[in-house]
């Protein structure tokens, strides 16, 4: 009962307090997961169980992949206090470039090959995204122009380029190996191997983390708490793998998404680039006065966003099997919605990768569920609108009444 004690000693706090503190810190994620559970439960009953059947569960995650790549990048863009409106059309442009190359170029250059064209398509797709990111990032960071305007220009530009490439036609992108990127499945056995690798990776992470803590003189939290964490994740992954293996196996794009997400979450928390990104969004002047190279970091955030658009574009082309004039239309808003729904603050400085993924999952869950119920497209929009705004309202409410 003293307000002026210096207590940096976390050992003195009871386990229960620490547990509740950790719950409170992550309250947002838990609420979002609860929302997913509620949505799934409702659709489970309205579709008489079909919604959570292996086939649909498999499709659900496959469908959210393309926007999720964009949402992951969008988190960092919004965290710096910026916005990127070009991502949907850039991904669309990448998808038609990839389709064009396959249909008109690789086919002529390497008529008998399957693997080489797929690899070249991926590389070209990523390069197009990267270059677009470099150009937009340079204008925004070093030219000092508002991101809203630059990327709105980008959106129009990529739409125009997309129309030029397609000439108003649909271009097939269905070479067998390339199609596997978004339509392939991991065989059952390999699915279980991946599961085992994930569990081993988590355990290794726990034990090396504890060793490092001890080396620096900190007391790690009780082992069973760490193991409990691993256990919960393992059970969820197990359930997922078991379920999708009953259909065709883990979808390749879901695996890709998981790898990219882990990589990006790591970068956000454990690298200087990530820390500086959050510092810039939190207080640009203080970050500058702490020696952060603001322009350099903002530039890199947009380059990364461009590269992720490249990934999304490649997956998109593979997923739908062709490049169309409508490719990527409106994806930027889906990505922004997923990020904000996942707790990213539009004011900057706050936001997580996993939050954006849950946000994307909520949107995908609603879309597939409403489609399965054969709700008219018009009403699908109305329901999604209400849920989006209501979810953000709940989030804001909890933040104010914490």
């Amino acid at each position: 009962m003293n307000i002026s004690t210096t207590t940096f000693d976390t050992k003195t706090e009871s386990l229960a307090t620490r547990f509740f503190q950790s719950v409170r810190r992550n309250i947002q994620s838990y609420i979002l997961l609860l929302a997913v559970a509620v949505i799934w439960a409702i659709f489970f009953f309205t579709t008489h169980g079909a919604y959570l059947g292996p086939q649909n569960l498999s499709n659900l995650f496959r469908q959210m992949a393309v926007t999720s790549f964009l949402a992951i990048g969008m988190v960092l863009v919004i965290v710096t206090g910026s916005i990127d409106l070009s991502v949907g059309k850039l991904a669309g442009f990448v998808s038609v470039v990839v389709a064009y190359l396959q249909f008109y170029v690789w086919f002529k250059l390497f008529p008998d090959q399957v693997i080489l064209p797929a690899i070249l398509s991926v590389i070209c797709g990523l390069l197009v995204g990267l270059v677009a990111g470099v150009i937009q990032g340079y204008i925004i960071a070093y030219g000092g122009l508002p991101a809203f305007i630059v990327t709105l220009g980008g959106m129009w530009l990529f739409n125009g380029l997309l129309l030029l490439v397609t000439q108003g036609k649909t271009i097939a992108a269905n070479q067998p190996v390339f199609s596997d990127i978004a339509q392939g499945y991991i065989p059952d056995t390999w699915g279980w191997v991946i599961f085992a690798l994930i569990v081993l990776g988590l355990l290794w992470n726990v034990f090396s983390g504890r060793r490092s803590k001890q080396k620096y003189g900190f007391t790690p939290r009780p082992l069973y708490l760490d193991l409990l964490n691993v256990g919960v994740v393992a059970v969820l992954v197990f359930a997922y793998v078991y379920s999708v293996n009953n259909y065709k196996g883990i979808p390749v794009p879901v695996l890709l998404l998981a790898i990219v997400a882990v990589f990006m979450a790591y970068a956000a928390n454990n690298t200087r680039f990530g820390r500086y990104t959050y510092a810039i969004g939190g207080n640009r002047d203080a970050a500058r006065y702490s020696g952060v190279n603001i322009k350099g970091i903002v530039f890199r955030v947009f380059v990364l966003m461009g590269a992720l658009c490249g990934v999304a574009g490649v997956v998109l082309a593979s997923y739908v099997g062709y490049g169309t004039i409508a490719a990527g239309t409106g994806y930027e808003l889906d990505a922004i919605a997923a990020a904000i729904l996942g707790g990213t603050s539009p004011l900057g400085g706050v936001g997580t990768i996993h939050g954006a993924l849950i946000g994307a999952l909520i949107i995908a869950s609603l879309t597939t569920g409403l489609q399965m119920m054969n709700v008219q497209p018009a009403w699908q929009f109305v329901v999604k609108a209400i849920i989006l705004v209501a979810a953000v309202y709940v989030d804001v409410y909890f933040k104010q009444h914490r």
Partner: protein
Amino acid sequence: MEDENILEFKHVTKQFPGVVALDDVTFDIRRGEIHGICGENGAGKSTLMKVLSGVYPHGTYEGSVTYDGEELKLGQSSIQEAMKKGIAIVYQELTLVPTRTVGENVYLGKEPVEHGRIIWDKVYADTRAILTQYQLDVGPQAVVNDLGVGKMQMVEFAKALSENAKVLILDEPTSALSKAEVEKLMEILRTLKQHGITCIYISHRLEEFFLITDRVTVLRDGKVVTTQPTKDVTQNDLVKYMVGREMKERFPKGNRKPTDVVFDVENLEAVDPNAPDRKILDGVTFNVRRGEILGIAGLMGSGRTELVTTLFGEYGMISKGKILMNGREFKPKSAREAINAGLCLVPEDRKKTGLVLIQTILRNISLPNLDQFSQFFRINSNAEMQASLQQAKSLTIKAPSLEVLAETLSGGNQQKVVISKWLLSKPQVLIMDDPTRGIDVGAKFEIYRLMNDLAEKGVAIVMISSELEEVLGMSDRVMVMCRGHSTTTLSAAEADKERIMALATGVAVA
């Protein structure tokens, strides 16, 4: 018949998780008096004012507050409710819309309207009436941006008075004011008192209580230590009550032994990068030695802050002169370059440029030092935590853990976080721009002691201060600035208040 007391606090207790911010606070405030409240940072002053102004609504605290004979029961979103009842706060950080006029600001949110149209004539006429009634020397049509801090504060007063405020809460009203502006403020307060308005006056500058207040209440650790008529106590009494012990000296004795010159500025001139024809520095020359504290004195607007932000690579464009660091020429183009060269800046406004308030103490301390903790791309979070924790402990930052957000800390502790982050950067020259601004007596003393420690370890410290006593009490030498140029550097023996003021105002020429 009206009660003698306009406000009565009875057994007010406010708890936060792990902390009792207010502990059974009981005292009263008389109608029409100016009531001073003092206490160290974290003593509960701000919390008490938040209870009164409705930031913490009724029911979130124990005990009761009686206002004008009735218990104050403010609900959610109750700041407006409190204002309607006549309780208004004039904040430490001003809350005006800088690009609009005085009148627009005063009537913001309550514009007189006729058929959906704002009656601007009435806005300005009424504003003028209020300004004249309370002898506030501002024009109603002036744009707030063009006013000085002192005048902006007058607008804040006018805003509160236009709501028919009966109780005005002034939270550190003088922390950003010049001496003349403080005197003007005192005059305004006396006028307000004549009009029967009750003022609650919170300040760290104890001498002000004796200029203006009728009674004074001292808080310590969330409890009321005493409430007494101001004429019955002395400054030393107040300090004693605040810290719970007798403070023998305000400035700790150091054992500093300055050695060789580490930082040398010669005839520096610089212009505003946004307006290259505006000179911000016009011939500044000084040097500072290892293990020395150099004070920089000067009036507001004399170019002190412009000087140090230019040296830090973040403001002025250097047009002439040179800077030598360890004898080598040094041309800072960014904060990063300055930091790498061993020059760090504790900025004037810690909330604006010192801290990322929405981040944790840990992230703030490590922000400029991540290179130290990184191997390839990875930040070693344990090394980061260990180094930051050690720094935070040695500076006795008061917080339950380093995972606490910087915005929740008191001013003194925030300043310690800023200093911590720079100490991890191991500076050779540490520039501190008004390091004790808005900080209470106890924390000030700790910061002085820290400055001594650093200087004894060989760091060269450059301290800007608006308080002459601080400059005189802490510095080995004093450089005085006047209108963008350095006048002269006085040794501790030569420096006294009169001499510094004469140089700073341009009365005396060095």
